[in-house]
């Protein structure tokens, strides 16, 4: 569904991604693991064309997307739940969600989808009038996910959804993620530092180090790989 072919990306003169290739098939959950500064967020920014790539090609459903302006990606059914949530703090939860459905032309679809995400996250329904900036960390993450679901995306990219959250809430959020996939047959690209949980719910994984893909394989194999256990699982 999504394919990156030999991506090289730069910040100014500094190269941060080296020859990165990866593939995500329809209906899969794929994890990208890596420590801080390994280039995980740069992969996402490259896919979204927020960081134009230096060389390489990116295909989505057979269509080349690395030259498409970022604001058009959502029309292809790609949705991003960014690192650090990035809600619009001065807007209500309701307005944040509505903004998630910005590209929807049809009012009926918008209200249907609003109802759907509110059902997924009943907490948000209770707080829909509250300003997004006043929510707790877990609620903010829920709001960000719900906002990302507003267009009923076929492909969702999650950047560090567990960052800064209590373990209980992380489990809840991952549970909801798997539920979404089963209900909607969405494809998920998950970028995480929390290797254990991420690999448990995903089908396959890639390991990124200093801008290079150093390891890839089925999640089960990765969980058992001694290198992963040593570097990411603290075993």
């Amino acid at each position, binding site marked *: 569904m999504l394919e990156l072919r030999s991506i090289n990306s730069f910040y100014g003169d500094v190269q941060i991604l080296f020859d990165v290739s990866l593939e995500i098939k329809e209906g899969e959950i794929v994890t990208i693991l890596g420590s801080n500064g390994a280039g995980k967020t740069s992969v996402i920014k490259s896919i979204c064309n*927020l960081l134009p790539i230096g060389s390489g090609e990116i295909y989505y459903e057979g269509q080349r997307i690395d030259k498409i302006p*970022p604001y058009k990606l959502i029309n292809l059914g790609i949705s991003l739940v960014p690192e650090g949530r*990035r809600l*619009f703090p*001065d*807007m209500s939860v309701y307005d944040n969600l*509505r*903004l998630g459905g*910005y590209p929807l032309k049809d009012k009926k679809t918008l209200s249907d989808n609003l109802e759907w995400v509110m059902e997924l996250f009943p907490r948000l329904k209770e707080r829909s009038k509250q300003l997004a900036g006043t929510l707790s960390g877990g609620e903010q993450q829920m709001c960000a996910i719900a*906002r990302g679901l507003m267009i009923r995306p076929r492909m969702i990219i999650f950047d560090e959804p567990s960052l800064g959250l209590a373990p209980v809430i992380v489990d809840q959020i991952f549970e909801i993620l798997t539920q979404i996939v089963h209900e909607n047959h969405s494809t998920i690209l998950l970028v995480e530092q929390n290797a254990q949980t991420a690999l448990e719910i995903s089908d396959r994984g890639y390991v990124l180090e200093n801008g290079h893909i150093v390891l890839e394989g089925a999640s089960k194999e990765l969980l058992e790989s001694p290198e992963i256990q040593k570097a990411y699982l603290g075993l």
Partner: protein
Amino acid sequence: MNFSYWMELIMSGVVTGACYALIGAGLSLIWGTLKMVNLAHGEFYMLGAYILWVSLTVGNMPLLIAIPIAAVSVVVIAALLHMATIRPLLRKPGWDMSPWILTLGIQILLQNIALQVWGELYQNVPYFWNAIFKPGNLFTISGQRIIILFGTFAVILLLMFIIKKTKLGRAIIATSQDGEFATMMGINTKRVYLVTYGISAMLAAIAGVLMCPVYSVNPWMGTTVQTKGLVVCILGGLGSVEGAIIAGIVMGIVESLTVSVVGSAWRDVAAYLLLIIILYVRPEGLFGRKREG
């Protein structure tokens, strides 16, 4: 020094303040989305007034056609300038400083083009409405001032409606809070930048159109008004449109009181002192939030 004297003073302050509010609201809107200070803003005010004057005198057009022509032409000029000069620099390294000098350049350019085209003579535009009112025999107010008040009020109401209630408004707010991420929600931020710049230019042009019968039309008329607009925009808390509007009216009243107490030579000093005193007490402005941006 009786009641009607003070009433007239305050009314004249509110009228000038309305003009500052329109300029300040536009500057604040531009700061909100583009994160730049537009030092060519007073020139849109000046161009609005000039185009109105030309349409009325040379074109012999009726007022109700001349006003939209002035507003629309200024928007077109602003949009072209935006695409030619601001867009290539937008968000590039040095963006914190480059717009200052760029828009200063545009300011000098537009002022001198106006000087070449229309000359340095001060031109006058007749009052739109030549009536004088004495509500309850308490004070007098001219028809022009009533038009300014209602015109400004209507424009601000429309602006607020656009920002708060429309999809475009939501796109503007989203862009101003998090421009990069707004694109990921399907918002074409480049277009939002262009549209907010155009809307702000139109606000300035309308201010110029409304005020020019009271003052006169000349190539330098925008400079002081722009400085006042900047002051108002900081007083109101940079990026807050409502704040700029309230601060504009307050400053108009303070100025007109200064004129009557100390004399008209100190009018601008009072306005600038007001800013400095308020910033000394509240560094984030009257309505600004702490640690923003």
